């Protein structure tokens, strides 16, 4: 029998995870004792403090040292890639606090809502640091389960429940595929740690490895909502409470894509010629499916869901390039994209509360002039999603295209350009509805909701990040470079 030796734990490295987790426990317990009236404010305050604290902790870790190291037998990594992704997740969470503060469903289950939001962010913070297949699977399930419940948290609304059930079933299907793929990779290489997988790749059974890699990619594709694994996205985005949708669109993408990058680059550098091509195919499928389906959407949330599928394509493009430029492109793109996703869904949430009905392109009519700031911000987000300045996605797309061109895949950049042109039509449709349609086209509004300064502040913060990421491109790209430069990129 081995002598048991307790592992040494680098508590500092875990602090972003632990801070949010502790916040969740506090909110959960306090909501048992606090009167219902103050639960919402208390929970929101704790959530905001924890998100800020966790982000600060991640930033401190990022600044503290540039070398990465493993935590508890290399189960997770403390490195700048994880820390930057954690900052993004926490930022999305913080914005979501502002957006969801006045969401009607929050009143009843305020405590649980904030606790689940914090736990989901905590799980993502863990997931992005995952360094073996087991922590990857567990981190994925951790935040996914939180999101299933958050989707269905409005338990009196059938659409929300059905969306939650659908998300759970499709999500678990993806996880099961991921699990089986992990098992095959484990069998082929005899290891679950990413570095050991890379080391064991040479002598492993290649067929197992390839099959396992394919299944792992499929599983992650489900989370990133890349076509053809996207079928849950529109229904879930539509059914979930709008602030939750914004959080999912932003934070889940950050987590899934960062982990995809880390896994492929650190664990499968030897299979580069396989996964880059596979990803290129997924990119094309996502761009085509997302953009073409978005053209015919009436519901704004569904349209944004398809737009998020197409952005999954744009975000996977730099990973497919497999070079360091691509890594930088991915992280820079994610900074702008995550802020803008939360902001766009926040504006949808406002209109939804005004109308007490699902927001369609038609009933946005006149919104831009009624609420100039929110309308203008939404216009900025829509132009930004197309890839027009002055939003940072513009540079993100330039970087993504540059990464694939540097790899020699100019055709992929052209595919991206063509589908960007397609996407103009539906994004501009929103702007047209908000500013160019007479107000009478909209359904009579159900009374003006109270002014929601927190939500407006969140939208303003999204705008600042969206525009600021373009102006301050150099420091942000330096940060992105710091975050990825230690990864052993297989190309160039």
């Amino acid at each position, binding site marked *: 029998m081995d002598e048991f030796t307790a*592992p040494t734990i680098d508590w500092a490295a875990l602090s972003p995870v632990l801070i949010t987790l502790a916040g969740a426990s506090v909110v959960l317990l306090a909501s048992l004792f606090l009167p219902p009236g103050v639960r919402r404010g208390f929970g929101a305050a704790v959530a905001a403090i924890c998100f800020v604290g966790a982000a600060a902790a991640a930033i401190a870790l990022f600044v503290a040292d540039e070398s990465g190291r493993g935590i508890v037998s290399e189960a997770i990594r403390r490195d700048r890639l994880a820390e930057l992704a954690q900052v993004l997740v926490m930022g999305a969470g913080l914005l979501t606090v502002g957006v969801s503060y006045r969401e009607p469903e929050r009143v009843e289950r305020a405590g649980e809502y904030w606790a689940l939001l914090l736990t989901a962010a905590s799980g993502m913070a863990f997931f992005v640091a995952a360094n073996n297949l087991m922590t990857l699977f*567990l981190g994925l399930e*951790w935040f996914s*389960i939180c999101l299933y419940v958050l989707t269905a948290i409005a338990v009196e609304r059938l659409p929300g429940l059905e969306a939650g059930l*659908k998300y759970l*079933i499709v999500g678990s299907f993806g996880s099961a595929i991921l699990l089986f793929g992990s098992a095959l990779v484990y069998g082929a290489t005899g290891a679950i740690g990413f570095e050991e997988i890379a080391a064991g790749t040479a002598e492993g059974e290649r067929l197992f490895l390839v*099959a396992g890699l394919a299944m792992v990619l499929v599983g992650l594709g489900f989370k990133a909502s890349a076509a053809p694994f996207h079928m849950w996205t529109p229904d879930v985005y539509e059914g979930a409470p709008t602030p939750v949708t914004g959080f999912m669109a932003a934070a889940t993408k950050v987590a899934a894509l960062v982990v995809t990058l880390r896994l492929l680059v650190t664990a499968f550098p030897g299979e580069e010629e396989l996964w880059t091509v596979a990803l290129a195919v997924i990119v094309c499928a996502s761009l085509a499916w997302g953009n073409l389906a978005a053209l015919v959407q009436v519901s704004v949330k569904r349209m944004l869901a398809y737009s998020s599928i197409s952005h999954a394509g744009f975000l996977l493009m730099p990973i497919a390039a497999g070079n360091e430029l691509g890594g930088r492109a991915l992280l820079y793109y994610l900074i702008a994209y995550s802020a803008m996703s939360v902001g766009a869904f926040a504006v949808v949430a406002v209109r939804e509360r005004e109308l007490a009905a699902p927001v369609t392109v038609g009933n946005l009519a006149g919104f831009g002039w009624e609420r100039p700031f929110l309308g203008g911000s939404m216009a900025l987000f829509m132009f930004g999603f197309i890839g027009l300045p002055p939003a940072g996605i513009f540079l993100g797309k330039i970087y993504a295209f540059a990464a694939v061109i540097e790899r020699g895949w100019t055709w992929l950049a052209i595919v991206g350009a063509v589908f960007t042109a397609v996407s103009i039509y539906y994004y501009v449709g929103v702007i047209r509805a908000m500013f160019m349609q007479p107000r009478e086209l909209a359904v009579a509004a159900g009374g003006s909701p109270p002014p929601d300064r927190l939500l407006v502040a969140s939208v303003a913060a999204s705008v600042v990040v969206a525009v600021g990421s373009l102006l301050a491109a150099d420091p942000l790209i330096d940060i992105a470079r710091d975050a990825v430069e230690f990864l052993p990129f297989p190309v160039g």
Partner: protein
Amino acid sequence: MEEFLVWLVWVVAALALLASGLAVVLFSNPFYSALALIGNLASLAVLYLLLEAEFVAAAQVLVYAGAVVVMFLFVIAYLGGQADTPWAGGPTLQAVAAVVAAGAIAVEVVVVIALQADERLSDAADVGEAFGSPAQIGNLFLSDHLLAFEVTSIVLLVAAVGGVILGSAMPRPRERGER
């Protein structure tokens, strides 16, 4: 003789596994499906024993057959006639996806069989008495895989919270329910 017995056990367990798996998927009554799942899990436990994973086998029987399946049965009983309501919210494009999945899996079966013919997979490591024992599992869980162990507890906690939230979904009076 021992070899023969192991083979016999394996064949029986394997047949039971496949048959019960098919039964779970094919029965139209969810109650029978859930019962079939017990058989499935039990035959898996037998296979785990053959693979010298005693602790996992025990956990399989206790956790699954003892808790999860019972929970399924409770819910099925609670829902009664509603239990097998068909539902349009499942994955779409079933036909295409099913064909693709079946094709991919068929390929994998071929791969495995091919590898077996290659004699590469028939070898197994020599393992000591301790392999798969509760002591070894516990040791690993508390050292190398401490984080995984802790995360499982968080996952369970979240599931519990989620269960409470979903359980609180009482039908509401109409005037408040219509939002």
